[in-house]
Every structure is written in C-alpha cells, then in structure tokens.
C-alpha cells in the first residue's frame, strides 16, 4: 500500500497574528511522515478555502499542498 506522493494538508486552525488579525495555520504532512506548518494571512486563507471548496476548516484536510501555490484545489 503506498501513501500520498506529495505533502497534503493535514489540518487547519485559526490563530491570532502579530498584527491582530486572524490567520490560518495549516499543518502539512509530508510523504515521509514529517509535518510542517504554514501560516496564511486572512485574505490568502479565505482564498484557499474558496479554492478548495472548503466550507469549514476541517474540510481543508487531505487537499494537496500545491493548492497553496496554484490557487485551485483538488485531492
């Protein structure tokens, strides 16, 4: 059984940013099992949610990390 060939979004949370805005904290899971964190500002976070068709933070999980770059989303 093979795992995903590239990093995917493993989870998302809202956090307070340095400038007092709400930011999106994305946890990425890499094929080797490692995890990393990416923080997106409000506009980018909302764009990602829209691009992924995610109505809720939890629905970001499983989407490809590439969607952070491409602005479109697929699993």
């Amino acid at each position, binding site marked *: 059984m093979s795992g995903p060939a590239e990093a995917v979004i493993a989870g998302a*949370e*809202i*956090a*307070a*940013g*340095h*400038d*007092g*805005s*709400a*930011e*999106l*904290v994305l946890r990425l899971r890499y094929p080797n099992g490692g995890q*990393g*964190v*990416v*923080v997106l500002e*409000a506009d980018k*976070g*909302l764009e990602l*949610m*829209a691009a992924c068709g995610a*109505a*809720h*933070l939890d629905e970001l999980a499983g989407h490809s990390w590439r969607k952070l770059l491409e602005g479109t989303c697929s699993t």
Partner: protein
Amino acid sequence: MFDVIVRNGLVVDGSGEKAFKGDVAVKDGLIAAVGEVSGPARREIDAGGRVIAPGFIDPHTHFDVQLLWDGAARPALEHGVTCIVPGNCSLSLAPLKAADRPKVVGMFQQIEEMPPEAFTQAFDWSWEDFAGYRDAIARNLSINVAPLVGHSVIRLWVMGEAAQQRTATPAEIAAMQDLLRECLAAGAVGLSTSFVDLDEHGRPVPSRFADFAELDALSAVLGEFGRMLQCVPEFYDVDITIARIDQLSELSLKHAIPTTFSPVFDNTSTPDNAPRILARVEEQFARGARVWPQMQTRPIDISFSLLRPSLFFARLPRWVRVLRQPLEARLHSLNDPDTVAKMVEDLGPDGGRKMMGGLIVRGGDAAPAEMVGRTLGEIAAERGQVPAQALIDISLAHGLDVAFLAADMGHEDTDRIGPMLAHPLVHIGASDGGAHIASFSTYGDTGYLFSEFVRKSGRLSLEHAVRKITAETADIWGLKGRGRLTPGHAADIVVFDPATIDRAEERPVFDMPGEGMRYVRDARGVDAVLVNGEVAYLGGAYTDAKSGVVCV
C-alpha cells in the same frame, strides 16, 4: 545639595539583587547616592510603599514620526519608560532625500497607520541626513531616544528606484557602508532590517532586496562601532526563522556585533515554534554569538468588523460565504431575514453566546459610545437578542464599521509565556510602540509584565522583572550609563506601586494630527518618572520637563 531625593522607597536597582529600603539622590542629571541619604535636596519625592527602579527601556518602537511633535512618546513615558528605540524594521526618517519622502511616508503609514496629516502638518521636515533628524527630535525630548537607522532608507538613498528592484552592485554596497558609517557617527544605535515588511502598495520594502553580501558588508560597519543589527525574520515560518537565527549568528560572530530579532510569540496552534526558536538561540549563544530574541509580554487580540472578511468566522461556512461577497451583495444578504436567520442558526442553540458573547465592542469607529468597551453578550441580552443576531444588527446599523475584539487569542498562556520571559536569553521587548496605532494599543507592556507575571502568577520576581527591562536591556544595546540605580548613571527613575502597576483598558483617542485616531492604554500605579534627573511625570500628569536626550 542634591537636586532631587526620592525617599523611603523599596529600591530595586536593576541589577537583579534583592530589593532594599532606601533613598535615591540625584544631582546634575545623574544618580548621586543610593541607600540612606542624608542632606537636603531642592525637591523630595516620597516613595513610601512604592518601588524606586531604573526607568524602563523599550527596545522596539516606531515613534520616529510622533517624536517630532510629542517628545514624551505618549503614553510610553507615563508607563515608566524612559528610553525608547525607534527606527525598527528597516524604516527610519533619515537619511532620506526630499524627493524620496513620499515613498517612505507610504511605508510608515503601512506600518504605523498614521494619518497623512502626521507627515504634512505636524512638523517642519527640514532634514535629509541622520544628524538632521537627530537634531530635529532632540529639541523637544522628554524621553530618551536611542534611534536605529533603517536599512530600507539607506538603500533608497543610494539606489533610488532600484532599491525595490534588485540586489546592489559592489559600488552601491560601498556607498551604503559609507552612509551607515555616517549615521552611526551621528548617533544611530544600530541598523534595522526586515525580511517581511511591505510598502503601501504591497511591494517588499527595499531591505528585502538585499543579498547576504550586502548585509555582511553593512554588518562589518556595525562591527566598527560595536552596534546592533535588528531584524524582522520570516516569523510566520519557524524553519525560516531558525535559518535567519543562524545567519544573524554568523554575522554576530564574524563582526563581533549584537543582533536581535522579533517578533517571537507563542500560539497554542503552533506550540513547538517558540521552544524551537529558543533552543536554536541557546545553541548559537553557546558558540559565542549574540542573537537576542525579543518577546512581548502582552497577549495578542483578534479584531475585526464586517467591513472585511475575517478568518474569525472560518468555522462558520455561511458567514464566510456572506462576508466574502462584494460590499453591496454583502449588505443585501445581511438585510435578508432568511439569510440572517440561517446564519444565526449556524451558531447552534446558544445563538453564539459561547463564540461571540465575549467579544468586546471597540471604539474609534462608528460604534456608539454607549456600547464601547462592553461585551457583545451584555449588549445582546439588553436587546433581547442572541449575540450572533446582535452582532449583525449592530453592524448593519452603523454601516458595518463596528469593530469587535476577541481578547487573548494568542501569546496568552501565562504558564508558557512566563518561563520564556524569564529565560536569560530572552530579551523582553517587541512592544511595537507607536505602530499599528489604529488597530490596537502597543503601550503598557511593562505594566502587564508586573501585573501578570510578577503579581498574579509569580513567574518572575520583582527584581528579575525590573532587571529584564532595565539593566539587561541597556547591556544588550550597549547603552552606557543607563538601566541601573548606581551612582554616576543617568538619573532615569520610575516610582511605582508594586501592588497596582498595570496597563488600563484599551481606549480610542483622537490625538493624532488631523484628529487621527489611535488606541492607547493609560498607566496604572506609576507615581513618578524622572528622565535624566528631571521630573517628567508626576501624580498622573506630564510636566514641562524636556530633559530627554538622544543617547547611545
């Protein structure tokens, strides 16, 4: 005869040593005696039941512009701060050619949120070089200032438009070195740079176009003076931040300079970040590098209005959909009873009491005065509504221009933050005083240090907390003769009540040029502040003293 004696206080001298009962005498702007002081003075201040401490030093501010019409950097001084470091994050008001002023004004407006009138009406912009700026602020200072010079403006001076387009040539780097040398000779306490900040058009500020060779060359000049390199790393990514720590450490070791970076803050969603950063700092200090992480004391709040979509609603799909619409469509949806009913339903049976009840209505915008400072839960109850409905109705009634604040949403866990602040390699700072003025208050972090981490949680002793923001800060920055109540040191003194010192609630004021708004927090529990031996603040009021200096 002494000029001033502060008598009968608990002397916390900045060294970290145990406090003792005594007096502090001042003559000719300097500490003259500490202990049981006999003899007369022209003025005596009774400090019975109070702490006598060195004035606090705030190492990360953006008061560059405000200092031109407010030499006390209000309200910093009333919080006991007697020395500030402006010019952070690559931006200062000098050196700057007249033709380049609009560019830098835009950058300052982006960071500080100052109204345009602050730059066009509030002062006579008469200088271009750093010495000129130093002289312009020095005329009116009530507080001491240790100014950084900004990498972005040095780049702009030398490269013009190209400063935001490319790396520098060797000749341009050499010219920047000469200019930095001139600024340091004129009183700059170091150089600030940024890998993060944007101008008002969303373009990276000039310092972000520098390559390592440029930073290395400028650090070499800092090494000639033994001065500080301040840096804003890519703090949103802990791995890049750690890489910057390594880079700063190399510069520190190679050129024998201190370096500092900020912000470092703790969030429960990324609990490993701050500990990883501190672990790397420890490793680099063990190699001999000086790479000081600055950490703020205050928690981070989230604020928003319905004028702009916020991720605060990210767990409410319908709210996100409605609020992401263009303004006209958004207003249409928010005026549609069916849509609003469904939005309220989304909050569940409690109508948002848990999620929204604790939101605080902020002032400074269209919010009616009777609501400002109160919780949405209280207001909703009065209106006979659930909080979600009240939030929408209140917003609609005021053109959506009502801001709400969710307090303590980050960097708020005292049990985690306290030990970090107490860490011997953590530099307490990063207040950002004078920045983000229309978004939140950046004043009173020192009061919060004492109220939360000394008095309430006991994470730091009184002596330790004082040392962290006085002697330790002076030593890190090389501010000679400051930060300690020691004979011969500058008589920068704060007298405060250890039982009550705190920051007051945030409130909007309209005291910026052009009646611009900013959020401030008043001081609590600070009785007196002396700057270079003169009483600058006493009994809740500022005096006419202008004894502040540009100090390095």
